[in-house]
């Protein structure tokens, strides 16, 4: 029989004092972006529906997308999309045993973050101008 042992461990649950490594950051953002994309599904379907149902709703959608607040929202959505996609491709490559040492994963983690920033900026530039 095993005796129950009460272990007192030091706990630190203050999230603001934990410094995430780049791998952890890419990972948690992948999850956050994934949940965001799931929550955005009805909006995506609604947009597709409005763009197809009639000429008038198509034009109305175009007008809606012209509003700067909607554009900002779209840019935020694009972040979720780009991050989830790129970090996902990184996961797939890691599953195929590509770049799996700590040093290399840190490198690919930074690559993902850099690509996401570039893509979001490119997207923002293309819809704001």
């Amino acid at each position: 029989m095993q005796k129950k042992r009460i272990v007192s461990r030091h706990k630190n649950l203050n999230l603001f004092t934990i410094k995430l490594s780049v791998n952890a950051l890419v990972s948690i953002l992948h999850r956050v972006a994934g949940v965001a994309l799931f929550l955005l599904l009805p909006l995506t379907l609604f947009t597709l529906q409005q763009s197809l149902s009639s000429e008038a709703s198509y034009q109305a959608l175009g007008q809606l997308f012209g509003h700067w607040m909607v554009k900002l929202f779209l840019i935020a959505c694009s972040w979720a999309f780009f991050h989830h996609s790129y970090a996902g491709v990184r996961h797939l490559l890691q599953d195929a045993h590509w770049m799996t040492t700590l040093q290399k994963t840190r490198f690919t983690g930074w690559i993902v973050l850099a690509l996401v920033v570039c893509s979001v900026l490119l997207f923002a530039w293309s819809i704001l101008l």
Partner: protein
Amino acid sequence: MIIKLLTSQYPGMRIWLSQRLTAVVMAGYLALLIIVLLIVRPSGYDAWRTFAGSLLFGITTFITFIFLSFHAWIGVRDVLRDYVFNQTLRTYLQIVVDLLLMAYIAWLSFILWGL
């Protein structure tokens, strides 16, 4: 060994692989869609409607969306298991997610073919 891992003895392995395969399908669809959109460049309502009304767009989009639903189902399931500790609440939330995903699939088929 790999074949053994994919039998019903190891359901987690199947789920794990499903999440990867669905991801690959979505990436493929997306790449294809972007290329086709860059070639066709539908501008205006009529061109867009013709493009989206084509059989190829409808079938590939619908199939990809089913894969996407499965991918999302696995992802949300993992998130719920990690953060919702109350078993009853988690079960209800999972049912809500399942129903939502099924409703989205029905909604998409309505958008694509029931216009």
